C-alpha cells in the first residue's frame, strides 16, 4: 500500500476544523440509552409534518421518475417563488437545504484573506463554512440575546465580504425589526453582501418583522435565505433557497451546484407553498405549547429565553451536556447549547403536547435528582 503524505496535503484550516458528527438514527439511540420511545426535540422540525398538499404529492410519487435527473435549477419551483414574492425566477437559487446555499454565497464572494462577520451565538453553519473554506469568521457577541448591529459594523474591515444575520435568531428567537434592518443595510450602503437568514420567518406574527423579499429591490446587496425544513416540514427532503438582486444572484449562480435538489423535494416544496392553512395551524400549535412550556418552566424556577420561532431556550442549574444524556435516558432529545456558546442552556423544539409533557416530566425528574 503506498504511503500517503496526508499531513502535507491538508490545508491548515482543514486540519484545525472539527467535523460535525450528527446524531445516530433513532433505533440506535434508543438501544444505547435504553428507552423505548424517543421524542426528538432537537432540530426544530415541524411537529405537524408537511402540509397536506405536500403530503399528497409525496404520496403519489411514481418510482419510475427516480430514473431521470430532476430539473437542474428547480425551474418550476423558482417560477412559483417568483410569483409569490413578485420577483424574477432568476433571482432565486435553490439548494440541497439552506446549508448548501450558505456555501454558494461564501464561495462566490470570498477569497484568501477575506472574512465574514456574524454573531458568536447563532446558527453555526455560517462560521463553519467560512472556517473550513479558509476564511476568517469574525464573531460578534450578542447583546441582550440579539445581534448587535453597531458592533457588527465596527468589526467590518476592508477584507469583510459578507455579514450574516439570522433573523429571527436561532437559538435566541430575537429579531431585528424592519426599521433596524433598514438602518443596518443603509449603514453598509452596498459595500458588502448582507445575508439575512429567514429560516424561521414564517413563525413570526409580529407586524414589525421585516420581509426580506420586499427589501431586495431597495438593497441590491441583500441576500435572503429561506428553507422548507422548518415551517413546511420537509427537512428530510433537504431543500432551501436564496433570493437576491439579479446581479448578485448571477454571481452566486457561478458557484451553485446544479442538480443537487432531488425531484421529490422540488415537487413537495412547490405544493407546500400553496398551503397557507398549514402555517396558521402550526403557529397556533407553537403558540399554545410555548405558553404551556413557559408556565411549567417558570414553576420550576428556570430562566428561559423565548422569542420568535419554534423553540425555547432554558437555563439549567447543571451542565447541559449532562442534561442531554440524562434526558436521553428518559427518551427526550434536546439540543445542548454549549456548542452554541450558551453553556448550561438547552434548546427545546416545540412539539406536540404529548412531547412537551414528556419533556417537562423528564426535566423535572432529572432536576429533582440533581
Amino acid at each position: 500500500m503506498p504511503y500517503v503524505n496526508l499531513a502535507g496535503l491538508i490545508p491548515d484550516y482543514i486540519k484545525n476544523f472539527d467535523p460535525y458528527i450528527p446524531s445516530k438514527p433513532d433505533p440506535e439511540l434508543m438501544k444505547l440509552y435504553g428507552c423505548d420511545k424517543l421524542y426528538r426535540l432537537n432540530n426544530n422540525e415541524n411537529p405537524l409534518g408537511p402540509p397536506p398538499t405536500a403530503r399528497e404529492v409525496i404520496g403519489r410519487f411514481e418510482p419510475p421518475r427516480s430514473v431521470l435527473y430532476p430539473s437542474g435549477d428547480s425551474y418550476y419551483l423558482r417560477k412559483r417563488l417568483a410569483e409569490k414574492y413578485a420577483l424574477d425566477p432568476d433571482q432565486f437559487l435553490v439548494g440541497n437545504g439552506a446549508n448548501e446555499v450558505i456555501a454558494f454565497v461564501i464561495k462566490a464572494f470570498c477569497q484568501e484573506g477575506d472574512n465574514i462577520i456574524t454573531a458568536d451565538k447563532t446558527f453555526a453553519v455560517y462560521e463553519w463554512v467560512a472556517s473550513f473554506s479558509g476564511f476568517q469568521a469574525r464573531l460578534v457577541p450578542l447583546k441582550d440575546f440579539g445581534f448587535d448591529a453597531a458592533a457588527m459594523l465596527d468589526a467590518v474591515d476592508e477584507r469583510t465580504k459578507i455579514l450574516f444575520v439570522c433573523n429571527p435568531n436561532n437559538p435566541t428567537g430575537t429579531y431585528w425589526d424592519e426599521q433596524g434592518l433598514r438602518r443596518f443595510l443603509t449603514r453598509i450602503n452596498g459595500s458588502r453582501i448582507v445575508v439575512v437568514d429567514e429560516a424561521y420567518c414564517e413563525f413570526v406574527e409580529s407586524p414589525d418583522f421585516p420581509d426580506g423579499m420586499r427589501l431586495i429591490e431597495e438593497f441590491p446587496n441583500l441576500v435572503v435565505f429561506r428553507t422548507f425544513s422548518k415551517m413546511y416540514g420537509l427537512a428530510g427532503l433537504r431543500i432551501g433557497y436564496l433570493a437576491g438582486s439579479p446581479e448578485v444572484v448571477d454571481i452566486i449562480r457561478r458557484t451553485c451546484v446544479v442538480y443537487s435538489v432531488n425531484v421529490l423535494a422540488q415537487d413537495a416544496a412547490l405544493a407546500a407553498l400553496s398551503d397557507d392553512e398549514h402555517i396558521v395551524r402550526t403557529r397556533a400549535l407553537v403558540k399554545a405549547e410555548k405558553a404551556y412550556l413557559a408556565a411549567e418552566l417558570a414553576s420550576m424556577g428556570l430562566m428561559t429565553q423565548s422569542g420568535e420561532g419554534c423553540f425555547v431556550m432554558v437555563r439549567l442549574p447543571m451542565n447541559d451536556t449532562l442534561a442531554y444524556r440524562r434526558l436521553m435516558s428518559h427518551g427526550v432529545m434536546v439540543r445542548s447549547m454549549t456548542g452554541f456558546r450558551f453553556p448550561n442552556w438547552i434548546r427545546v423544539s416545540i412539539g406536540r403536547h404529548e412531547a412537551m409533557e414528556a419533556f417537562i416530566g423528564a426535566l423535572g425528574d432529572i432536576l429533582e435528582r440533581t
Partner: protein
Amino acid sequence: MLTEISLERPHRTNRLATYLDMSFFSLTMSFVEESAAAFGMEAGDTTRLRLASEELFTYLAESDQKGNAVSVEAYDGWYYVGVKFLLKTAPPEIPISHPPGKGALEPGEDLADMGLIIASRFVDRLNVLHDSRSGYGVGLTKEKTYPGTEAPAKAPVRALTQFRVGRPETETLKYFVRQVTAYYPAGSFPVDFSFPAKVADMVAEGHYRVLVATDGGADVAGGILWRTQGTRTIEAFGPYLFDQPPEHGMSEALVDGLLGEVVRTEAICLTDIYPTPELPEGYFELLGSMGHTKADGHKEPWPIYYRQLKEDPGSSVWAHPDLVPFLRQEYDRLYLARDIRLTPGGGEMRPAHPLFSVELDRIQSSATLHLIWDGADAPAILEQHLKMLKAEGFLDIFFTIDLAHAFEANLAPVLIRQGFSPRLIFPHAGEADIVAFQYEGQ
C-alpha cells in the same frame, strides 16, 4: 493589558537524516548539542540532553535497528528542547520493553541497564512515538532552566463588578501567574507556575492557553488556564480568583470564556485537573479521583472534574469481564450510553512479546504505561516495568487502556492482579474511552 493577538510562536525545527551507525555518532551528537544551544538552552541542560541522546543513539545503533536510516529532529518548544529519533523504515520492533535480541525477559531480570531508561534520567520526558502513518520513534524532552521568583506577596485587588475577560499580554500573564502562587496553596496550580517566565514561554509555545479577568487596565482579578491533551480533551486549571466575591460572576465568566474558545474545536471533553473552590457550580461533573503521592510519601486524593463539550453520541467499547462491574458503575453514574462488548478471549495465537510505551515525567515523579501491542508475555514484562519504575523512585504509576482495542481491554485482569486499580474513565479521550488505572501496590 489584554490583546486579541495570539502570543503563540511556531516551533523551529532542525532535521538531520542519518543512520544508526556509530560512525555517525559524533555527527548526531553535535547536531543535537548545537541545535539545543541555538535554541537558547543553557550549557548544563544542553549537556544533559546530549547525554540522553548519546544513550539513546548507542542503544538503537546496537539494536536490531543497527544501520537503519534515522531522522533526527531537534525542535525549539520555547520552554523546552525536544529531540525525536524517527524510525520510519524500521521493522515493528522498538526495544522499549526489553533489550533487543534477548528474547522475552525472565522474571527477576534486571532492566536497569536499559539504554532508554538511562537516557530518561537526563531528561524530563521520554516517550515512544507510535503513529501508524509516521512510523515509530523515541522522543526526548528537556525543559529549559528558568529563574525562579521569590514567593510573591498577595497584591490586593478590589472587587470588580465590571470586568473584561481576554488573553493577556506577556507581562500581565506573568503577573497573573505570580498572583496565583500568592493566593493559592501549592498543589492548586501546575508546578510550572513557580517560573512565570516559563509559563509565558509555554503560552507562546501553545502548550497552555490562558484567559484573565481585568478591570480593563492593570488590575488582574483572576484567570483560567488550559491545555490540549491529544486532540479530543482539554485540561483546565482553575479558575483562580483574587479577592473576588462569587456573586460578581467572574468565575462563571472565565469558564464561559474558556468554553467559547474550545467548543468549536475537535475537543469533546473538558477536564479540570486542578479544580479550585471557585469552580462554578453546575458547570462540571465529578469524573472521579486519582491519588497524588507527595514527596514525603503521603498520598492525597486528586479529584478530577469534567464536562462534555458536545452531545455524547453513545458508543461501543471493548471490556474484559473483570472490568465490567467498574465500567457499568461508572457509566451509569456518568449517564454515558455505552454498548459494552466482552472480550472473552478465543484461544487464538498471540505474538510472543508485547510492546509497552512508558511516558516518564520526572517533574511530577509519575510514569504512565500504555500497551501498544499485545504479547503473550505481557504479565512478565509489565512486572519488570513496575520493578524498574519503583526502583527509579517514581511515586505515581498509571496505566491507561483505550477501550477501542480489545487487546488493550484484555489486559485488565493482568493489571488488577499486579496491583493496579481502575480509577477513572476519560470519555472519548482516545479512539474510544480511556480507563486510567493507578498502581496501588501489591
